[in-house]
């Protein structure tokens, strides 16, 4: 690091469009793009690719999700809680990938000025956490029920009599436009709520980490995480429901029938033929709402389907559990054991602290971290999974209406338009319906056709992990959650050769494992994972839970000690090295790798085909 060569990443405007992706900028709103207008400010910041949340190229419509969450989290930090020592985060899209940057304070001493305000406001939330969390859940239930009620009407040739007889006064075309507006409002409100408690939950976690850094320096991150683990999390409930269904199938002697070589829906129909089968199907239906409203991916993208949409994912998991039960294996999540270990560790570390004051500080920090722990998982289940499963299905229904109006060819096409353009194409749909006139179908189709090409070209491009200036220090709550540290930055800057055979990342779950790598770039590739594979992915999603029963270890490009994958790996006892920055690009499926979850290293032992 004593090199005289200037350490910096390419400037945002220096990165060319990949061949075939020229004009990609037209897919996104101008405020999402790096610009000449703001070039000086933008190139002074450190921008990192958020591959953790946005591993794929941004579909023009799907940016609605990060627009909603980046606006929300930044306001929580900068305008609502006035978090000291932390900044808002700015977001930009470059070559179809989302980059984030911490925005520094404009004025010296701003952090200190915020302190009393933050202490008062955050103090109120921590003081009333349980009540506020209950209120939060009630708000989310209401929001989800509002969302569910949004009707996406088909446009009739002639309105029904009831429209007239009830004196409704507006057309179904208007209802369709209103539906879209309500959907947009609803998802923006969902993200306003998303960070209401979450940011403070991160603060409480960092407080515990700070305490430990001062007193028990050598404590591993995994052990630290274990001190707050084991709380009965909604996050695990869907997986638990699958285990219960597997056990019930075993008890009812339905194993062979569940494994019939047919689609789940067909098997369900066959099961309904007799009492035992009906009993099991009733249990399945009971479990579905809400526990099957989990995305097979992160929930953040329209093309990730949820269990409720496609039963094949939970079905494979149920039969997998059934196999294990029949072999006499124990499939229960070792909840009691996790809690016992947690309490044992807590008592031992506490006793090691030299003074009673340290012990009280330990108790306080731990108590606060445990208080907030359930919310860290709950927000994800309520919003990314339940809410978004419904949201994306409503959007698909809207797309169907546009296709029915012959303005697009297929449902998927709609997501190649950004959220403002979707408003336009829907107006074109409702308006051309009302005016019984032709719409601009050829215009919309040509946009989509070109954008499909652009997306393919962007997808083939290897993204820059970071852009702009190398920061002096990384300290924000957000970048910490993303696992971005000075070490990861060094790793990204390291010459190719240095990182050829060994990758460094965050030791997120202990243990060492060797095996063949399996690159999984998206949730649609989950099915390729074989028993004993090492999962290598851009980032992991909690609903991949069934996969964790198969893999030996997990490696990711982006992620930290407290991300969902890390929690799952620790609970399943799998080594995990996260936040390597480059694993999916340097490792290939079939490569033999060793994952050391204690040291945070991934070693390439042999290339695919050479062993």
């Amino acid at each position, binding site marked *: 690091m004593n090199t005289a060569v200037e350490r910096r990443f390419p400037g945002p405007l220096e990165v060319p469009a990949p061949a075939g992706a020229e004009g990609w900028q037209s897919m996104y709103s101008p405020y999402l793009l790096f610009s000449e207008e703001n070039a000086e400010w933008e190139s002074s910041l450190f921008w990192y690719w958020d591959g953790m949340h946005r591993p794929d190229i941004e579909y023009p419509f799907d940016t609605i999700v990060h627009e909603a969450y980046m606006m929300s989290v930044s306001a929580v930090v900068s305008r609502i809680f006035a978090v000291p020592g932390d900044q808002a985060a700015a977001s930009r899209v470059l070559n179809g990938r989302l980059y984030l940057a911490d925005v520094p304070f404009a004025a010296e001493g701003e952090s200190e000025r915020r302190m009393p305000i933050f202490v008062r406001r955050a103090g109120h939330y921590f003081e009333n956490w349980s009540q506020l969390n209950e209120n939060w859940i009630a708000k989310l239930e209401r929001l989800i029920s509002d969302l569910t009620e949004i009707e996406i009407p088909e446009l009739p040739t002639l309105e029904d009599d009831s429209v007239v007889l009830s004196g409704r006064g507006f057309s179904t075309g208007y209802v369709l436009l209103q539906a879209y507006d309500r959907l947009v409002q609803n998802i923006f409100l969902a993200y306003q709520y998303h960070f209401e408690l979450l940011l403070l939950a991160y603060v409480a976690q960092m407080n515990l980490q700070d305490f430990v850094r001062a007193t028990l*320096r050598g404590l591993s991150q995994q052990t630290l995480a274990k001190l707050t683990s084991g709380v009965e999390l909604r996050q695990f409930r869907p997986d638990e429901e699958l285990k219960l269904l597997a056990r019930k199938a075993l008890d009812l002697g339905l194993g062979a029938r569940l494994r019939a070589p047919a689609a789940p829906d067909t098997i369900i129909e066959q099961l309904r033929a007799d009492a035992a089968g009906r009993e099991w199907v009733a249990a399945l239906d009971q479990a579905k709402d809400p526990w099957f409203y989990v995305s097979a991916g992160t929930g953040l993208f329209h093309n990730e389907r949820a269990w409720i949409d496609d039963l094949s994912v939970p079905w494979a998991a149920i039969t997998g559990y059934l196999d294990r039960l029949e072999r006499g294996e124990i499939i229960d999540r070792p909840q009691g054991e996790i809690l016992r270990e947690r309490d044992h560790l807590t008592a031992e570390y506490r006793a090691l602290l030299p003074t009673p004051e340290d012990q009280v500080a330990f*108790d306080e920090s731990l108590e606060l971290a445990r208080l907030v722990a359930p919310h860290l998982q709950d927000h994800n289940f309520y919003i990314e999974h339940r809410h978004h499963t419904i949201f994306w299905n409503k959007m698909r229904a809207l797309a169907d209406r546009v296709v029915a109006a012959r303005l697009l060819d297929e449902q998927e096409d709609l997501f190649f338009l950004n959220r403002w353009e979707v408003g336009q194409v829907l107006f074109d749909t409702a308006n051309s319906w009302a005016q019984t006139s032709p719409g601009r179908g050829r215009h919309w189709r040509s946009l989509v056709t070109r954008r499909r090409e652009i997306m393919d070209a962007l997808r083939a491009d290897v993204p820059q992990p970071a852009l702009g200036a190398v920061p002096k220090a990384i300290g924000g709550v957000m970048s910490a959650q993303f696992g971005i540290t000075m070490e990861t930055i060094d790793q990204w800057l390291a010459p190719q050769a240095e990182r050829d055979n060994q990758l460094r990342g965050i030791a997120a779950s202990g243990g060492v494992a060797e095996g063949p790598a399996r690159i999984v770039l998206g949730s649609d590739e989950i099915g390729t994972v074989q028993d004993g594979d090492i999962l290598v992915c851009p980032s992991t999603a909690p609903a991949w839970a069934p996969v964790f029963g198969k893999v030996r270890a997990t490696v990711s490009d982006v992620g930290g000690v407290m991300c969902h994958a890390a929690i799952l790996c620790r609970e399943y006892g799998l080594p995990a090295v996260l936040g390597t920055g480059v694993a999916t690009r340097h490792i290939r499926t079939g490569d033999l790798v060793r994952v050391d979850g204690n040291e945070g290293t991934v070693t390439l032992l042999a290339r695919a085909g050479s062993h």
Partner: protein
Amino acid sequence: MPHVLDLAECSRVSLDEIGGKARGLGRLLEQSLEVPPGFVVTTGAYREWMRANGFDGQIERLLARADGVTALQDVADDALRLLEGAELESSEIDVAYRRLPGGPSVPVAIRSSAIDEDAAGASFAGAQDTHLSITGHREVRRHIVRCWASLFTPAAISYRRRLGLDHRGHAMAVVVQRMVAAEAAGVMFSLDPLSGDPSQITVESTFGLGGALVSGDVTPDRFSVDKVTLEIRSRVISVKPFADRIVDGEVSRVELDSRRAEMSSLADDEVLALARVAKAAERQMDRAIDMEWALGPGPSGRRHLYLLQARPETVWSNTPRSTDPPETPRASTSSAMSRIAFGMRQNTNRHPETET
């Protein structure tokens, strides 16, 4: 009071009689931890011998000279000559030596056990004598006298002066133990000696006898082990160009080939076995400790674990650990909040430079 005590009898005898080293070893034996068999020659033996030979007055006069113009080294040389000129006759010592397992001329290690050495708060590490691989009862007695004479080295004299201790009241006990021809040896601390982190056990190790490590002649391998989970948290394997070994009854420095020099001197399970011992011993003694250890021939094979020394750790832990419940008020949100605010100030003010 007998002049010779078996180490197993030493856990409750006053420091004044047997010194810190012997009592530390006695405490280890009390916990059923393995210590090479041995005995201690008490301060009573020293005092009686000094009196019988009329040395007290002569030493007094020598030391008085050192207050004047004569260099400490001259005084020390004269004291050594004086004491070594007289024979120590003791059938008690000869009987204890012959009783040691390993035959009538078993090699032993002879170490001073000073009454203020190894006391919590004043670690006088290595300032006194150690004689290795001594064989035969006559030689054993001669080296016991040499240990006694080490009370009057320049370092020991000035050390006592600095602490305002009286030379006259001073005495030395001596520990005699069967020699362990170590394959590997080192020290360990029941905390991280660099940060004071009480959750990390630190083990340092080198090939052969531990002297080269204690003296700083070799950079040891270094391991950190989490005291609670007993995971090895870090390993730094150093190049150890030589090992001190017993060759033909003498300690000699043996060069290691480069492949061997770069190998770890301990296997992981040995590191963990050591850490378990440190954890248990700390719990028994209710304070942070440091220990010297050796792996050598014994009941479990060529790498049997022996503890050579245990004493209170002196840098980080001048107070015993409290296991009592705190009297300060229960955890509360408001005090947690001020802690968070404090932490944020620290974080905000922390601007680690990336360029060094």
